[in-house]
């Protein structure tokens, strides 16, 4: 989906590009861990063939580019389509065919269109397998805050985030572990207004992957030189070590193993 202005509607918690932060592909030479594209590729490995998936807006849409060609994974976009394809060739933009981020997309064989009430019924009704959202904060019990900072003067915009958060069978978060100011986005309890309660099952960050469990957050995988102790220091949370076994059912590959420290 190259050529899209992804920054224009970047998801909450996923930094908006500015002139000195040119966007999602920015290199992060000063930061350990995975950059956005590598993280998107890592998440893509966990999406099983046959899944119906919503990738929201902003950085999670990068996951679509990383899905292996030939696998039947059906993308849902909440503005009324299943079977969404990649961005069109230049000159073939159809203003009637957009994704939830209002970026031009294409239609794949098998696609269908429907109105908004059906589209959100697919979420609430439990028909959607996975959605991947951005975040301001995720709590130890899986509460999600990703729509509003509550800051004075901020214009709130929730879109479909609350519906997705409580609707999809599995709700994953894709985010940097730390804010621009170095604070942890994983917290004991969210301080920003909530999007959904106890709804997140897994958090993919640039430093590590976390599962939300009854006993709190469990680290299932670390990237680069990151260590458990470092993660505990950065988050201030008692993180369980679950790095000893494979994450649940991802399509393991040499690439994935290479990412483990």
């Amino acid at each position: 989906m190259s050529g899209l202005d992804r920054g224009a509607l970047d998801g909450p918690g996923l930094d908006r590009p500015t002139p000195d932060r040119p966007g999602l592909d920015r290199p992060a030479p000063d930061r350990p861990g995975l950059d956005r594209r590598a993280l998107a590729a890592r998440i893509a490995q966990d999406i099983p063939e046959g899944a119906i998936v919503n990738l929201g807006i902003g950085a999670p849409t990068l996951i679509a580019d990383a899905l292996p060609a030939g696998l039947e994974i059906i993308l849902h976009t909440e503005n009324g389509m299943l079977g969404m394809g990649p961005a069109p060739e230049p000159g073939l933009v159809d203003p009637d065919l957009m994704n939830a981020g209002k970026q031009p997309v294409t239609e794949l064989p098998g696609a269908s269109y429907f109105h908004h009430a059906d589209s959100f019924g697919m979420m609430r009704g439990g028909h959607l397998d996975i959605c991947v959202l951005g975040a301001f904060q995720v709590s130890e019990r899986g509460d999600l805050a990703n729509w509003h900072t509550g800051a004075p003067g901020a214009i709130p915009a929730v879109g479909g985030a609350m519906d997705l958060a409580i609707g999809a069978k599995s709700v994953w978060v894709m985010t940097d572990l730390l804010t621009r100011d170095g604070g942890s986005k994983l917290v004991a309890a969210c301080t920003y207004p909530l999007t959904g309660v106890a709804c997140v099952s897994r958090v993919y960050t640039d430093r590590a992957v976390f599962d939300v469990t009854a006993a709190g957050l469990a680290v299932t995988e670390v990237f680069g030189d990151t260590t458990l102790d470092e993660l505990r220091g950065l988050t201030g949370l008692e993180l369980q070590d679950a790095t000893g076994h494979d994450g649940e059912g991802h399509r393991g590959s040499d690439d994935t193993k290479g990412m483990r420290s």
Partner: protein
Amino acid sequence: MTNTFEVAVISKLRADASEAIADVGDGATVMIGGFGAAGQPVELIDALIAQGASDLTIVSNNAGNGDTGIAALITAGRVRRVVCSFPRQADSHAFDAAYRAGEVELELVPQGNLAERIRAAGAGIGAFFTPTGVGTTVAEGKEARTIDGRDYILEYPLRADVALISAYRADRWGNLVYRRTARNFGPLMAAAARTTVVQVDEVVELGALDPEAVVTPGIFVDRVVEVGERPWLRDGEFVGAPA
């Protein structure tokens, strides 16, 4: 014996957008279809701006993009209140300015609740329990209930005096088909308003639309205006948007 029905041919066709929206009054609640620009009834909104109705409540997913459509309506000072899910966008400067100046009120509704509230109005549902928003600020002041172990909040229907929507083709009975993701809120809003006005690329003969493929049956439509084919179509075939 005279058959009085002989002359009562049903035609919802109107000569132009101005005629179709002429009776929208000050203070009206107006639903406007579209998700971003896709499905936004720009010609009807332009006519509404020219017509002059003010103090409007706008129900739409967004609060305008760029300087046209809903954004132009806001800039013209005609909007008192916006009910929507996603007002803040990269190019929502018209709404942002009016909101920060205190000229426009905002009721923020999660997108699925917005769609379902509109659907409920059109379907005669008195209210419904939804899990969306439970435990958030959206739930404040709302009746809550636990049903089969799941928590819900009560949401009420959203009705409108007028719905302005965009479809692809219509016949004179008001049967509609849409194009791709431009469908979005159209079918829901068509049923939820006292008067539904639709702009279409093309009006076709009665019988030309495949009855199996009609998305919005004409019972939900009051007025139809043909505005001509959009620049990215030619004789119904997609040719790409002009650069």
